[in-house]
């Protein structure tokens, strides 16, 4: 028998082992992939990007500044020179809206993030550990709910004075409470479920169960609450500037523009409509994005 050399040649090496699995994607890659497939969410994201551009670039393109007054041209309706009309001191509303967007968007997003972080961690821990831990933590929430926020906001104003960071502190102090309660409720209802038990049987640590299993599973209400806090934060800022904690005039955020416009709703409706519509469009965009994120992040919908 002639030894055929070919027989002993190793098979040509395959480029890669046969794929028996779908490519391993991380949780976040997967979420992003699914988010991209959601048309509503992408439209929302596009609008948000546009609004951000409007806020960042817009002011440089406008012939006016947010403080340029022209008293004889006060309270003019929308026209060629002032697309959205002018306010009570003859300032261009469109320009003021662009500057206002910087403040309001930043506050909305940061406040929402602060709220999300504190609320989720706090509520998650309380709900997961239950018992005495939960009891103490929730009583602290009750206490913070009970103390009138106006009191410490005034105090903050006196101690810190106006400023952007101080607005965030004030909003951060007041807004995370309902998030914490909602997350806790969700975790309470989930921690006894099979998947949590399974994870525990596999030896997952408590923290891993909480942050990798329970919280991602309650992502729906969390995202909803988070997107809903954005308009709340925008209007809370308007209230804070009433106390004297907001940005100082003549700079004005959307909330301030809207509440200023409210007084003239009958005679000069555009002064209210412009900021109100801006806020509503932004909110719609955030909500669409939020819904998309919810679907994308929910582990049960993973395919």
């Amino acid at each position, binding site marked *: 028998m002639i030894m055929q050399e070919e027989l002993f040649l190793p098979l040509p090496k395959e480029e890669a082992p046969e794929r028996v699995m779908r490519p391993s994607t991380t949780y976040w890659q997967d979420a992003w992939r699914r988010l991209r497939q959601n048309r509503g969410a992408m439209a929302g994201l596009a609008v948000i990007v546009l609004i951000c551009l409007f806020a960042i670039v817009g002011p440089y393109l406008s012939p006016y500044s947010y403080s340029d007054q022209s008293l004889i041209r006060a309270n003019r309706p929308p026209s060629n020179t002032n697309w959205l009309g002018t306010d009570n001191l003859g300032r261009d509303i469109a320009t003021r809206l662009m500057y206002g967007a910087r403040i309001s968007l930043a506050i909305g997003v940061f406040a929402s993030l602060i709220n999300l972080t504190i609320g989720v961690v706090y509520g998650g821990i309380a709900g997961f550990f239950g018992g005495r831990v939960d009891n103490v933590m929730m009583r602290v929430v009750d206490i913070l709910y009970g103390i009138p926020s106006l009191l410490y906001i005034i105090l903050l104003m006196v101690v810190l004075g106006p400023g952007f960071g101080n607005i965030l502190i004030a909003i951060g102090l007041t807004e995370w409470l309902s998030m914490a309660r909602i997350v806790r409720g969700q975790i309470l209802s989930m921690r006894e479920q099979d998947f949590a038990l399974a994870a525990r049987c596999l030896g997952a640590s408590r923290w891993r169960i909480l942050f990798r299993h329970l919280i991602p599973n309650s992502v729906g209400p969390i995202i909803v609450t988070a997107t809903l806090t954005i308009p709340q934060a925008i209007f809370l800022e308007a209230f804070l500037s009433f106390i004297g904690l907001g940005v100082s*005039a003549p700079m004005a955020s959307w909330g301030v523009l809207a509440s200023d416009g409210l007084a003239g709703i009958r005679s000069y409706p555009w002064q209210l409509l412009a900021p109100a519509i801006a806020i509503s469009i932004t909110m719609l965009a955030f909500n669409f994005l939020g819904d998309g994120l919810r679907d994308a992040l929910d582990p049960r919908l993973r395919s």
Partner: protein
Amino acid sequence: MQKRLACLVLALVLIVGGIAGAERAAEQIVRFNIGAEPETLDPAKSTGVPEARIELNVFEGLTRLDENDMPQPAIAESWEISEDGLRYVFHLRKSQWSNGDPVTAHDFEYAWKRALAPETASQYAYQLFYIKNGEAYNAGEITDPSLVGVRAVDDYTLEVELEAPTAYFLSLAAFPTLMPVNRKVVEADPEGWFLKPETYVGNGPFKVTKWVHNSYLELEKNPLYWDADSVILDKLVATTIESEDTELVMFETGQLDITNTVSRPEIPRLEREGLLKVVPNLGTYYYIFNCEVEPLNDPRVRKALSMAIDREAITEYVTRAGEIPAFAFVPPGIPDAKPGEDFREVGGDLIEENVEKAKALLAEAGYPDGKGFPTLNILYNTMDMHKAIAEVIQEFWKKNLNIDVRLMNQEWGVYLNSRDEGDFEIARAGWIGDYVDPMTFMDMHVKDGGNNDSNWSDPEHDRLIQLAKSSNDPAVRMQAMHEAEAILMDQLPVMPIYYYVEAFLEKDYVKDVIYSSLGFIDFKYAWVAKH
């Protein structure tokens, strides 16, 4: 011919219609808004305008102010004043409380001493400090109330002794703090007699019949009022609505006849529709310079700042209700020494606006074209109008003097505290007179005065004020105050901006309501025309 006849008939119809239009309506009710829940209806203790608007219609003092804010005989039929102006004797008419008790001089004596008593703790007790020993009694320096300079000689004669001649004492006698109260009723329930209609006994043209807290009060004609025949209205409804927007909707939908104020953006429209009513208000809107802060300690800087703003633009485009640009501190509407003359007209304008001069002054003070001028803060309490005015002034200073200021708003309580502690550079302020005399505007700038937040003082100015206070001669008093005001306006620790007016809405069928420049509303002679 026929056409002419038709015209004549038409004209006749219009005239008759016009007269008929001025007839009284069957329902004599006026609904007005006082703008806030009254904090108290005890005349001895109340301080605000909403309270006074009720009390003035429920009580009557020795005098009552007429449509020109001049005191007229009311419960006092007549009076005599001593040569030196220190002693007043009032002769009271026979009249009744709304519960049928007679109103006597003892009621006045009791009411005034009660308002002064330290344990009453009345905030407006100082309205009675003009009375001999009034301040000492209030401060607890004397404890015997019989030393206080008010005494009922008999049931219908009241004798009053003053600390110093007080030209405006007869006007003060119409003020709520000096109104009589029914001793029997008050002593039965000192803390709550004014809360219940049954025990809220008054002696004025109306009486309270219902008080729904934070909502409205109802007043009805008081049949026992001595001059009840002159009172035409059967009923008054006083709402306590705070929101300008809400009262406007209520006014336009027929739920309200007189509003408390008016939303600024709506003024042009309402003026066109003929609903806006503007009455003078004895008050000045101004900015305070903190004279201890660099560079505001330099009078040239203060003058430059004052010269570089356009007050007319502010009243025409920002406040919009017909406010009067202020070129001095004391507002118009106060009589001078000679009858028929106005203190402001006699005094004239004391400051000017001139951008070129302002620039020169600023350069002279070491800041040519605003170079090196520090960024100052304008402090105001949060309110749309204060904000708008501050924004406009900020722009004027930037444009005309090339200096930057920052705006800083604070919540009311914090703002008052900052002002009181001198923790500000430039602050907005407003002052509403307590009585119709220049002194209510002039005595606040003296050294260490409780209202002198600018930390400014001038010995000559203080001497003139003291002179005016101690003199009984109108010519001397007014002259001294004119001179003091000239010093004040030359030094400018305060920068006047405009004189207040009161703008609100009134239905055209409401007739003969008396609006005082002190903010009071008197419905004694008011009536409703057919509409």
